[in-house]
C-alpha cells in the first residue's frame, strides 16, 4: 500500500509513485502522482492545495487599499506585477489613471521584477538539471536588483509599492544611477549565462524535444506567457492589451516554434534582453510630477465587474473584481498564469522519461502559491 492508501502497482503493471509535496525540484509544495511503465511516464496527476491560503476569501473582507498586499504573496517572484494588476483594476473601477510619473515607475519596476524573476528561474533550472554554478551566477545579479527594490520600496521580495492611483512613495534619489549600474552589470554578464548553460551538450540533450506542446493545445489548456510563446502563440498582454503606456516603448514579443523545453528556455533568456532594453529606454525619461493621483481615503468602487489583465513573468494574470458598491470587493478572482500552465503538464509529460519531468517542471517555471492562492 502506498502513501495514499492505494496500490503501488496497478493491474496493468504500472508503478505508481508520488513526487512531492516535499521535493526539491517541485519548487514548493506540489504533489504529482505519476503512473510509470518502467521509466516511461504513462500519466501525471497534479494534486494541489498544499499551500492554499484562501487569499480570495480573505480579500473579500479587506478594503480596496489593503487587499493588494496579499497578491504579492501569490506569485512572489512577480510581486510588483501582481500588485500592479490589482491597482490597475481598482483604477479601472474608479475611472482614474495613474500619473505619468507613476506609470513609468511602474513599468520600470515591473521590468526589473521580470528580470529578477527570470534570473532566479535560470538559476533554479540549472540546479534542477544538475548544474550548481548557475544558481550563484544568477543570484549575483538578482541580489543587485533586490538592492534597488529595497532602496526604493523598503522591501526585497514582497514590495507592496503599488497603490491605486500611483506608487506609494517617490523613487529614491539614487534610483536612476543604481539601475543604470545594474543594467550594465546584467548586460556584461548575460553572455556568461549563455556560455555556461545554453550551449552545454548535456543541457541540450535534456531539454531539446522534451515536453512538447503544440500551439493549439497550448491555447486549449490556457497556457500563457513564455510557455505559450515558445509554442508560437502570440499572447503578450503588453502588446495585445497595452497598459501603463507599454505601447509607447519599443520591444519585441519573443516567439519560438519549438514548443519544447529548450524553446521555453530560449524565450525566457531572450526576454531578459528585452526587459533590459525597456528599462534603458525609460530610465532617463521619467517625467516630473506627482507620483500618486489623488484618491479618497476610503475607496468604493461602483457596482459592476472589472477585469484587468497584465503580463507577469509567467504569463497572463487576470484580476476579476465584482463590486456591490461597498468598501470591499464582493468577490475577487485571480486568474493565475501558473494554474493554467500546470494543467498542461499531463499533456507534456505523457510518454517522457521520469527524468524529463524535472526539465519540464523547471521550464514551466512554476510558483506553487500562485497556483493554489
Amino acid at each position, binding site marked *: 500500500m502506498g502513501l495514499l492508501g492505494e496500490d503501488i502497482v496497478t493491474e496493468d503493471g504500472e508503478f505508481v509513485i508520488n513526487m512531492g509535496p516535499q521535493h526539491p525540484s517541485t519548487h514548493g509544495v506540489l504533489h504529482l502522482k505519476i503512473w510509470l511503465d518502467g521509466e516511461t511516464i504513462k500519466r501525471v496527476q497534479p494534486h*494541489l*492545495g498544499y499551500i*492554499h491560503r*484562501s487569499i*480570495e*476569501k480573505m480579500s473579500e*473582507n479587506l478594503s480596496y487599499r489593503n487587499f493588494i498586499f496579499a497578491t504579492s504573496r501569490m506569485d512572489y517572484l512577480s510581486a510588483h506585477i501582481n500588485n500592479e494588476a490589482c491597482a490597475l483594476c481598482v483604477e*479601472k473601477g474608479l475611472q482614474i489613471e495613474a500619473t505619468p510619473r507613476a506609470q513609468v515607475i511602474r513599468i520600470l519596476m515591473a521590468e526589473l521584477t521580470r528580470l529578477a524573476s527570470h534570473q532566479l528561474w535560470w538559476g533554479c533550472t540549472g540546479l534542477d538539471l544538475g548544474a550548481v554554478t548557475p544558481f550563484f551566477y544568477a543570484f549575483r545579479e538578482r541580489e543587485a536588483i533586490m538592492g534597488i527594490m529595497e532602496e526604493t520600496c523598503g522591501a526585497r521580495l514582497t514590495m507592496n509599492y503599488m497603490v491605486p492611483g500611483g506608487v506609494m512613495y517617490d523613487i529614491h534619489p539614487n534610483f536612476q544611477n543604481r539601475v543604470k549600474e545594474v543594467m550594465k552589470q546584467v548586460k556584461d554578464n548575460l553572455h556568461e549565462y549563455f556560455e555556461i548553460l545554453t550551449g552545454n551538450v548535456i543541457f541540450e540533450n535534456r531539454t531539446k524535444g522534451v515536453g512538447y506542446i503544440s500551439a493549439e*493545445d497550448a*491555447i*486549449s*489548456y*490556457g497556457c500563457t506567457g513564455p510557455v505559450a510563446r515558445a509554442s508560437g*502563440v502570440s*499572447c503578450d498582454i503588453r502588446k*495585445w492589451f497595452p497598459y501603463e503606456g507599454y505601447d509607447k516603448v519599443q520591444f519585441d514579443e519573443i516567439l519560438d516554434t519549438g514548443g519544447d523545453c529548450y524553446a521555453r528556455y530560449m524565450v525566457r533568456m531572450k526576454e531578459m534582453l528585452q526587459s533590459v532594453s525597456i528599462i534603458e529606454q525609460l530610465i532617463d525619461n521619467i517625467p516630473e510630477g506627482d507620483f500618486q493621483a489623488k484618491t479618497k481615503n476610503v475607496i468604493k468602487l461602483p457596482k*459592476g*465587474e*472589472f*477585469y484587468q*489583465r497584465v503580463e507577469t513573468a509567467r504569463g*497572463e494574470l*487576470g484580476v*476579476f473584481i*465584482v463590486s456591490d458598491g461597498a468598501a470591499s470587493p*464582493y*468577490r475577487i*478572482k485571480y*486568474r493565475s498564469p501558473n*494554474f*493554467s500552465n*500546470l*494543467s498542461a503538464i499531463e*499533456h507534456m509529460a505523457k510518454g517522457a522519461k521520469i527524468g524529463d519531468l524535472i526539465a519540464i517542471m523547471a521550464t514551466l517555471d512554476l510558483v506553487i502559491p500562485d497556483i*493554489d492562492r
Partner: protein
Amino acid sequence: MTNEEIKLFISAHIPAAIYEETGEFLNAIIPSEELLPIMKEMRSNRDLNFDYLFCLTCIDWKDHLMMVYHLTSKKHKHTLVIKAKITDVNDPKIETVSGIWKTAIFHEREVYDLFGVTFLNHPDLRRLFLMDDWEGWPLRKNYVDENMIEI
C-alpha cells in the same frame, strides 16, 4: 464580429438571453440549461471561433449562483463574457465545458471545490485544493467555520 453581431447570433440560439454592455466586455446572461450547445457553437463556428477560455469562475449572489466564462478568440480578437445563471443554490448543477476547452478541467474543479457546483460529465470531479473530507464550500457567502477568526 462586432458586439451587435454576436448578440444577434446568441439571440438566434437563445431568445431568453439578456445582455449587459456597461462594463468592458459584452456580457450575455443565459439560463444554465442552455450552456453546452451554445458553448459548442461558440468554439466551432468559424466566424466566432472562441478558442481561448481565459477565466472561468463563479459568483455567489445568495439567491442564485452565476457562472462566468470569459472567452476570447485568438484569431478574431473579440472577447465575450457568458454568464450562466444557476437558480438552485442547494444543489447547483451545470454541464461541463471541459470537452471544449481543456483548461476548464482544472478551473471547474476549483469552482466545485470552493462553491460546490457539480459539473455534469466532468472527467475527474474531485476537490482540488481542500482535503477530500472538508465540509462546506468556503467561498459561498453562507459558509461558516468556527476555526475562522473574523475581524
